[in-house]
């Protein structure tokens, strides 16, 4: 933990040093930035960004914002909730550390995602103080998420590695398309949860990095130029494109996560609040895990 804090402090001070150097956008580099725009030998990221941002990004976000909940509303109406008795035995699956880390990430997401939408539809909200506040909160709440993302990644990585059973899970979408309760041979996390883990952890890192680039904007980290071969302004353009595209995916899967936990399986959300999972839920939805727990004498 202490090492982690040191690393964070080092990173912050490095960022300060980077900010204190000459401008990478409006100084000498401006010539490179201007010459690079839309020329044959460049990636034309300026042109691409303008095209995508002006024509598509907001519409895709609107599609995700309306489309994903619509699909789940239909699922709720047609297939409905899966209800398992909560009167049977329980297993203590998430300790206080797990839950704390998860809750910090959860609260961050509750702020980051709505404020992100306010920025995307900033013209609808008329700009100014409200959208500026949203932008600032969007950045500030990235800090707690950035702090917990590594411990969260580490604490669940063992459970999140895909195995062959997961292919079967994907073939029937975990049995969520039928009203019947099927026995699903999943481990502690099923393939859907694993998918969310990877989207959240890897996608989260991508969002943090691309967001930080846009937030700090005028900084100098030589390594990044060498690594990507892009000029500074092109890195910013790439960040903006990546941040939006990753945003579509992250938001869509986040909505899924909320729906599954809060609606699709009635009361499942309590397991991450209290730490206890219900025997019947585990037996049906995570049968491989259930067998293992049984062997150990749990339940």
């Amino acid at each position, binding site marked *: 933990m202490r090492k982690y804090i040191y690393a964070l402090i080092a990173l912050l001070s490095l960022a300060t040093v980077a900010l204190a150097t000459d401008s990478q956008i409006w100084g000498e580099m401006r010539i490179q930035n*201007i010459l690079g725009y839309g020329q044959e030998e460049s990636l034309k990221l300026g042109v691409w*960004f303008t095209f995508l941002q*002006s024509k598509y990004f907001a519409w895709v976000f609107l599609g995700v914002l309306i489309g994903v909940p619509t699909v789940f509303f239909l699922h709720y109406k047609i297939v409905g909730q899966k209800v398992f008795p909560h009167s049977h035995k329980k297993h203590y699956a998430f300790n206080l550390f797990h839950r704390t880390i998860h809750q910090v990430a959860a609260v961050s997401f509750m702020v980051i995602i709505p404020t992100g939408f306010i920025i995307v539809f900033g*013209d609808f909200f*008329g*700009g*100014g103080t409200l*959208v500026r506040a949203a932008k*600032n909160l969007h950045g500030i709440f990235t800090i707690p998420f950035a702090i917990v993302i590594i411990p969260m990644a580490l604490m669940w990585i063992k459970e999140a590695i895909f195995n062959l059973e997961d292919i079967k899970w994907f073939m029937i979408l975990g049995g969520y398309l039928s009203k019947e309760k099927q026995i699903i041979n999943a481990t502690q996390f099923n393939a859907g949860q694993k998918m969310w883990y990877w989207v959240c952890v890897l996608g989260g890192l991508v969002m943090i990095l691309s967001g930080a680039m846009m937030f700090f904007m005028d900084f100098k980290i030589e390594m990044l130029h060498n690594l990507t071969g892009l000029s500074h302004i092109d890195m910013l353009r790439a960040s903006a494109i990546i941040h939006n595209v990753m945003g579509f995916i992250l938001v869509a899967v986040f909505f899924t996560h909320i729906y599954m936990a809060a609606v699709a399986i009635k009361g499942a959300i309590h397991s991450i609040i209290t730490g206890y999972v219900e025997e019947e839920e585990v037996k049906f939805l995570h049968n491989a895990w259930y067998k293992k727990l049984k062997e150990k004498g749990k339940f």
Partner: protein
Amino acid sequence: MENARMKFYCDESRCIECDGCTIACAEAHELPVGIARRKVITIHEGIPGKEVSTSVACMHCTDAPCEQVCPVDCFYIREDGVVLHDKNKCIGCGYCLYACPFGAPQFPREGIFGSKGAMDKCTMCAGGPLTTNSHHEFELYGQNRIAEGKVPVCAAMCSTKALLVGDAESVSNVIRARVTARGGKGVNSSYGWDKAYKNQ
């Protein structure tokens, strides 16, 4: 009568890289340190025959990319083509800079976390959406010389008259006369002219 279309033109055969336009602009609009709405750059430096100096700022482009990407729609384009923006609407996201071919939009650092303040760029000395020539307008956008019937300060102060500004036709006439006078040499149009105005 059709509206005039205001354009900038920097005659590269005349620009002597004196930086007078940058200073004139910064002084006239009382810009904070670190903000330069206009900058003189030298491209292809050291390559004989190709090296040119030119003065860049917001070109007030046709179909301005900044206006297209702004998430809060803070830009507005005047009838005469001058691209202006509302600093009270701007959230300082930086998208306009990513879209701009000239690196014109700049962001002063303000606030506790060094977050970006409202964007600042050349207004072609036409102020902003606030009451014309009000103290408020001057504070946020600088002088509104156009409203006073004056030429934008950079072009007015240019010692070699390399930097021209005005309605497209007048600018073209001046350039044409100059090219004719020097026997057709230096016909190449100013850097960025095509990009900004799409040969219109």
